[in-house]
Every structure is written in structure tokens, then in C-alpha cells.
């Protein structure tokens, strides 16, 4: 029996909106890898840390989580900058397995600190519009999804503008394109790497605040978000910002449609199937550069 069109439309729109938030979350990972060439295996744990920070900030100040994305992003920026400068920098030129071990260790520390401070129970924030929706003809769309997705688009657009139009952004791109050349022209590469890590962490922080509107947070969710971000970045293309955003949308919509057309428990199966197809037929990712 064919599915009602309004049902399909609602599910597609919900998937698209969720995918935009996933895309922003994965952007942080892509930015860091694209420039610093370090895979941030603590990505998901940094996101849950941002979500907890947002809960604390919202509890203390009454700020909306979307507004709290600015200070939380700033805090994560400082954390990311200090982490890169203080701990990760010496590992940039070391073998990849040592980078992996370092970042996994950081991830484990983050999870356990969150467990000790916040406990294992799920937490969330309640906003006035949490249960409101927009009704546009047959479409019924959550307000929280719309606002979170809009904030994600704004954050991504700001990031793109930063890399395209500011001097610092262009310098970071220069480091990514040609490390030696950047050094030769006198760029402080170590500082730029730290800035990039900070920016990636700030993206994760902002995405965490938006995701908090959609889901509850527990400390042990970190690895699942890391895995999701990896899938999105690999599908989109490592180092490609547009690719990360596009892949986020693709994964968000495919999850939603899989739940509708196959079975709700098939959502992850389809996501991994897409990953395998990309790895087989376009290993550099949809918008990544070959070689």
C-alpha cells in the first residue's frame, strides 16, 4: 500500500532538519582534520561535555540553549585551543596510532569526569516551545527542530565566511593547502593549528547546544556521536566543509526514510550501508578530493 504523501513529506522534512544539526556537529571534526591532520577521537565526548555545559548555563541564567551556544562555543574554543597547544601539538608529526591513543585517552577522561559530576541519568532542558509545532498545510514541523536547524545553518555560514573572507581564515586554509609554504611566508603554524582546533571544538560546542533541544544527554553517549560524526565526514569527504554539511543532511534524511520505508530499527543499518557504498565507490567522499 503506498504511503500517504503528507507522511513522507513530514518524515523527509524532519530528517532534513535533524541532518543539518548533525552536519554542524561533523563540521568540527572535518575542520580539525582538514587543517591539523589529526582525527579527533574525542569528538563525541566533547559534544556531550558541551551539552552538559549548556544545561548548567541554562539552569543558572535561564538562557535559551540556542543563545547559550555562543558562550558554550567560546568555552569549547578555549578548551580546544589549550588542548591543541598544550597536548596535541607534539603528536601532530608522530605516528597516527599515538594520536589515536592520546585522543581516546582524552575521551575516556571526559566521559568519566562527566559521570562523576553529573551522574549516569539522562538530563535535558525544557524550553517553552519544546512541544510546539508549525503547521503548514499537511506539514507539521517541530519548532525546536526548525530553530536548531536554522541555528546550525547560521553557524555553518559564519564558519564558511570566516574561512573565505577573514585573514586568519585564509591563513588557516593556507596551512591546510601547503604546510611548508605557510611556514616559508611566515605564518605561525602552531598558533594557527591551535586556533583551528579551537574553532572545531567551538563548532562541536554550538552543535551540542542545538542537539540538546532534540535529545537528552548522558555521559556514555559520546562514542555514538563520534561514530556518527565519522560516518558523516567520511561520506562527505575528509576536510571538506561543504561535504560534511551535505553528508549530514543525507544521513539525517536516510535515517528518517529508512525508519519509514523499511523499519524504525533499520535506521543505523542504512547509515552504515551508505558508508560502505561510499568507501567502495568513492573512497575520498562525495565532495572530497582524491589522493
Amino acid at each position: 500500500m503506498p504511503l500517504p504523501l503528507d507522511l513522507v513529506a513530514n518524515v523527509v522534512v524532519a530528517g532534513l532538519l535533524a541532518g543539518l544539526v548533525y552536519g554542524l556537529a561533523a563540521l568540527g571534526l572535518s575542520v580539525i582534520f582538514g587543517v591539523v591532520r589529526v582525527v579527533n577521537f574525542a569528538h563525541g565526548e566533547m559534544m556531550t561535555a558541551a551539552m552538559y555545559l549548556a544545561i548548567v548555563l541554562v539552569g543558572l541564567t535561564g538562557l535559551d540553549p540556542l543563545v547559550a551556544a555562543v558562550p558554550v562555543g567560546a568555552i569549547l574554543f578555549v578548551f580546544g585551543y589549550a588542548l591543541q597547544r598544550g597536548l596535541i601539538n607534539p603528536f601532530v608529526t608522530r605516528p597516527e596510532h599515538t594520536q589515536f591513543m592520546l585522543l581516546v585517552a582524552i575521551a575516556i577522561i571526559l566521559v568519566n569526569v562527566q559521570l562523576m559530576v553529573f551522574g549516569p541519568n539522562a538530563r535535558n532542558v525544557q524550553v517553552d516551545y519544546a512541544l510546539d509545532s508549525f503547521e503548514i498545510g499537511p506539514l507539521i514541523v517541530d519548532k525546536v527542530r526548525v530553530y536548531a536547524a536554522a541555528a546550525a545553518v547560521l553557524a555553518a555560514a559564519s564558519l564558511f565566511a570566516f574561512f573565505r573572507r577573514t585573514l586568519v581564515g585564509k591563513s588557516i586554509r593556507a596551512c591546510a593547502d601547503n604546510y611548508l609554504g605557510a611556514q616559508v611566508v611566515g605564518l605561525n603554524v602552531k598558533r594557527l593549528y591551535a586556533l583551528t582546533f579551537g574553532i572545531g571544538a567551538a563548532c562541536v560546542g554550538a552543535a551540542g547546544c542545538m542537539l540538546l533541544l532534540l535529545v537528552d544527554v548522558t555521559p556514555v553517549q559520546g562514542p555514538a556521536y563520534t561514530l556518527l560524526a565519522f560516518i558523516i565526514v567520511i561520506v562527505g569527504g575528509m576536510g571538506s566543509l561543504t561535504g560534511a554539511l551535505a553528508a549530514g543532511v543525507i544521513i539525517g534524511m536516510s535515517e528518517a526514510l529508512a525508519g519509514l520505508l523499511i523499519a524504525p530499527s533499520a535506521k543505523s543499518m542504512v547509515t552504515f550501508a551508505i558508508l560502505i557504498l561510499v568507501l567502495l565507490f568513492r573512497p575520498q567522499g562525495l565532495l572530497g578530493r582524491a589522493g
Partner: protein
Amino acid sequence: MNQTTHPRSPKRRRMLQAAAGSAALSTIGFPAIVRGQASTLNVGVLLPVSGVQAFIGQSCKYGADVAPAVLAEMGYGSNIRLIHADTETNVDVARSRAEKLINDGAQVLVGPFDSGAAAAIAQVAEQKGVPFVINIAAAPQITEQGYKFTFRNFPTSPELVRNGLALMRDLFQATSTAPRTAVFMHVNDTFGQANRKAIDAILPRLDFLPFKVVDTISYDPATKDLSVEVAKAKSANPDFLMVVSRLNDAILLRREMVKQRWNPMGVISPGSPGMYEAQFYNALGKLSEYCISNVPWYDPKAALTRRIEAQMAKQFPKEKLMFHALNVGYTFEAILVAADAFKRAKTADPKALAEAIRQTDIKERMMLGGPIKFNAKGQVEGNQSAAIQNLNLRPTVVLPASAAESKPVFPVPEYKRA
């Protein structure tokens, strides 16, 4: 005359004979005396106090925490020692924690509120020869394996579903309604699958229910988003929603129904946790109203209920028993079974305890139903269900009529924002 004792004097001989006799007697009788003199029963309590089912696990834990004091009051002594272990809502962790508890000296295991974990722990209990008393777990296969050391004082899924569907009939009769269609949504873990199997087998054979299931939708109990599932259920346009859920997903489900502006006649569970838990009311406020759960329930008038309530008020003054009654009641009763067996067996030897548990006949209960008496498969029969509807932010018995605190509300008014 000097009364120096000669080595071969009769007095000395008698003393030596007496000493040798005592030594011989004590050597023969010593193991029996040691076994009989077990001073403490170590009860390993396995519950999911972290992970997806953390809230329910913590709710069950109240039942364990009040048990030592209440059992002492009931005359079971003060020598019950509880050793707690967290299953982390994970079957593999449950298995390894059960093994560790036994290695740490637990002579009986109690828990674990989850059918998947219960099945795993039952295997460990059978291998190690340690009795395992299930507090809450409904998958029928757990007591169909021929295990000698697993005992369950909780209805199986077929029993839950039969009781739950009968209560639905009573609900429709009491409210003069006849819904024609339902969508069935269920978690796809061991418990949810067992319930689905029971409903698929039992529902078509019943002629006293007016509805048919037009769609069945399963989902991951750990899911963070039920928008697609609820959209699919809504598009089938059923008269009411039948749901077998856990707690977090039940909360997500209700929120999603409000966001998608879906107002069926009602939400009814034929027998699952979630909608009567304290956290459901806390998270949803007025949106929790009118949900109905047909579940095994407690007898608020029972003497044991009052004892447990008083102890809970002492130990956990911020918590109300009515919001934890099912979890507390069955967890307490599981420990009661262990304590009762210990008292009768006069030993903490696991095999003797298992034998004693087989002979259990406890009439003083907190939960509705007959005495706690295990059949040949280690299953208690006769646990009764009641229809519990959320009214005025508290779980209220609406059926059976004999125990009802209020009349059922069905169909429900449109949802109001909390």
C-alpha cells in the same frame, strides 16, 4: 594420704576418655554444625541503576534498601546482607556481575528487572548452582529452560497480555466504548518481542475485544527520536494506541504525540513499565494524564504495604511509595523469598536454599495475587493485574471495579500543554 594423680589412675583415665570422646564427636558433627550455623545470608542484588533503564533500576533499589529493616520487623532476623551490583542495562555486564557476586560470596541472586539480563543471569545461576529469584522480567522462556535454580515471582508475557487484554475489555465495557482499530508500538528488546509474540498469539483468538491491530511498529528502547515511528502510527489513523514500552521511550512517545498533534482515544499498555513511573510524571506533568497501564499492582491495604511504606518514609522521605510500588513491591518480595528460604533451611548453602525456595508458601504479600508459591518450573502463578490510569498526576486504580479508586476516563479529552 597424698592424692597425687597417677598416670594410670581411674580418674585420669576417665578424663582422657571423655576428652577423646568429645574430640571424636566434634570431628564428626563439626561440618553439620558449621553449615547450620550460617549467621548471614549474602544476597546479590542485580539492578540496572545506570544506562537506559536507570530510573526504573533505582526505583527497584528502594525495595532492596528497605528490605533488611522490614524483614527484621517481620521476624526474619537482621542477618540479611545485600551486595549490590549494577547491570548498566547491558546483558553482558549483567552476566559478568552475576559471576562476580557469586565469587564474592553471594549465596542467592535477586533481580534484574530486564528479561535479557534475567536470561543471562539464569544461565550463570544454573552453572554455579546458586538460586536466582527474579523480581521483574516477563519473557516466558526464562522459566521454560528446565532450570533448577531460577525462580520468578512475576507474570510471564502471555499472562501479562491475557490479564491486560481482559482489562481492556472491562475498560471498554465500563466506558461504553468500542474502538475498532489500534496501532501497536513496542520496544524491540527481549521483553518487547515476548509481549508482541503473546499479543499476536492471543489477540486473534479473543472474541470479546472490538478492535484489530492495523499496524505494528517496533523501535529501539535506547532511541533518542521517535518522530518517524509516531508519524507512521498517526498516519494509520487508529482509534487508540497500544504500547509496550520502557520509561524513556514512553516519555519520548508522549512528547512526540503532542508535537505531531495526534489525539487518539487513549494510550493503553497491556502490560509494560513506563507510564506509571515517577519519572514519567516528573518529565511530562499534565501530559502524563489519562495513560493507562494494565500491570501487576500492589494492594494498598495490605499490612506489608504499610510496613514498607513506613520504612520508605523513614529512609527516603522525598519519595512516595505509590510512584514506585510495582518496582519496590516485587523487588522486596524477591528478597523476602530468599530470607524466608534461609529461615526455613537454617543454612546459607545455595543448594539447600534452592530446595527451600521450591517449598515457599508466603501468604503475607504486598502485591495483588495469591500466595508466593512456585510451580514445578519455578514460576509463581496468579499474580493479578489492575488498570492503572494517570489521574491528577498519580497512578490510580480504575479497574477492576472492586479495587477501583476512580472511574476510568476513556476516550480522553484533547491533550493540554503542561
